[in-house]
């Protein structure tokens, strides 16, 4: 936070242009902690400090992984789950974006939907799968609706707050030009709310896969959530941890997706880099 100082003042000497950001080194540093944790886990398991039956171990997980991949279980389940997650994400996050924009923009919209949303948001829908079955049957619909309902709220809330946080001076500028509300929405509000919306997307991405664990208990015979919950019922620790690791991988993937989106969409905001 502070520059180096000396009693006689501060001298900055620069001799060459700074090299560009060293992407690879950064990536390595980032991966450091997770990798170290994996190694520690393996060491503890190998030396019997932790009970492999309770905690599994990276090695056993790798074995299980290979096994499940060889017989196709994993591919089938992950594939179908991702499709479900994507469908729910598109529905829930898309709706969250629209409603959030509307509520941020128009007082009337905010007044009519916000309280209802705040109420529903705290209701444990994941514990009310029964209702989803009653309303949406036992096909694919209740699963996707459940995932969508998990993705809706973070998107709505972040977009709404993002729109409210857009610099009012820019809105005034836009107003003074008498552009239509669509134009203002597209060029002022949406980009202004984008950093927040991306945070919402981060959550929505995570929830779309997390919700699978619940959604895939509804008359489902495949999917990573089904795999996890049935492994749990029969205490197959290795499969449970394989699923956990798979979820971790999905976490990395969604992080990469959002980072790329940030780099592309928030290019103008180079001021956001940490020191």
């Amino acid at each position, binding site marked *: 936070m502070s520059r180096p100082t000396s009693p006689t003042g501060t001298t900055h000497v620069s001799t060459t242009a700074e090299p560009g950001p060293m992407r690879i080194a950064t990536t390595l540093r980032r991966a450091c902690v997770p990798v170290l944790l994996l190694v520690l886990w393996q060491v503890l398991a190998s030396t019997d400090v932790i009970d492999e039956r309770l905690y599994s171990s990276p090695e056993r997980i790798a074995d299980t992984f290979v096994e499940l991949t060889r017989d196709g279980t994993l591919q089938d389940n992950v594939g179908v789950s991702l499709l479900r997650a994507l469908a729910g994400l598109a529905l829930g996050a898309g709706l969250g974006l629209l409603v959030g924009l509307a509520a941020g923009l128009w007082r009337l919209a905010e007044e009519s939907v916000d309280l209802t949303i705040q109420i529903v948001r705290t209701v444990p829908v994941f514990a009310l799968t029964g209702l989803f079955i009653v309303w949406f049957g036992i096909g694919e619909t209740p699963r996707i609706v459940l995932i969508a309902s998990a993705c809706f709220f973070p998107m709505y809330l972040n977009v709404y707050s993002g729109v409210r946080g857009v610099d009012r*001076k820019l809105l005034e*500028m836009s107003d003074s*030009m*008498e*552009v239509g509300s669509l134009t203002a929405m597209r*060029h*002022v509000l949406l*980009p202004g709310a*984008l950093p927040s919306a991306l945070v919402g997307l981060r959550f929505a991405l995570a929830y779309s896969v997390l919700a699978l664990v619940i959604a895939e208990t509804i008359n489902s015979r495949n999917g990573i959530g089904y795999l996890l919950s049935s492994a749990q019922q029969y205490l197959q620790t290795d499969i449970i941890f394989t699923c956990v690791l798979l979820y971790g991988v999905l976490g990395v993937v969604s992080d990469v997706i959002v980072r790329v989106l940030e780099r592309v969409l928030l290019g103008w*905001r180079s001021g956001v880099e940490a020191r």
Partner: protein
Amino acid sequence: MSKTTVAPTPAPAPAPAVRVSGLRRSYGSTVVLDNLDLTVADGEFVCLLGRSGCGKTTLLRTLAGLDKADVGVVDVPDRVAVVFQEPRLLPWKRVGFNVRYGLPNNRESAARAQAALAEVGLDTHADAWPKSLSGGQAQRVALARALVREPQLLLLDEPFASLDALTRITMQGLIRDLAERHGAAAVLVTHDVDEAILLGHRVLVMDGGAFTYEVDTSEAGRSHRGSTPYEALRRDLLKHLGVEET
């Protein structure tokens, strides 16, 4: 914000572009504009001088429809272009887009935006992000954004404050041309007395939420700096701003 057909006016031939009467605006207990009247004729260029914080920006914002008056009637044309006290560029849009923002999205708009950028000397910056502009460059982009429009009323809030002498002269010319070309009325806020005399047909001095002095400068603007009538006018205005030169 409601539209009214105000009581039939004994209409003068050319309807004035701006007509403000009995305007009052206060923030809490501070009265910023107090029973203010202003008429600007079509094609007239009015300059506002006044102490920092006397309410110039508030008046301009009210004219632009961005602030609501507490009391009073404000009558302005439809097409208004505003240059704010800060550049107010969309940080997530490149300079070129910022200039043509709000225009129909076609070739012609793009060409006009590029031409306006060239006029303010920034044709090479069309693809730059606003963040990478210097203070004066950003201000010029905001000017270019006003130039591409065809307003009936131009509202300018210290548009040349952070420009160097030469650039300022060029920009002043551009604004005057714009106003003349479209026969637009203009209200310009400035702290530079020379600028006010040069550009304005009329100069108003604001203080305590009202106009305290008004002078016709349509003649003086054409005489040059150093000439006796010019310097007299200048001293006169400065005196009303509280500055006595020795």
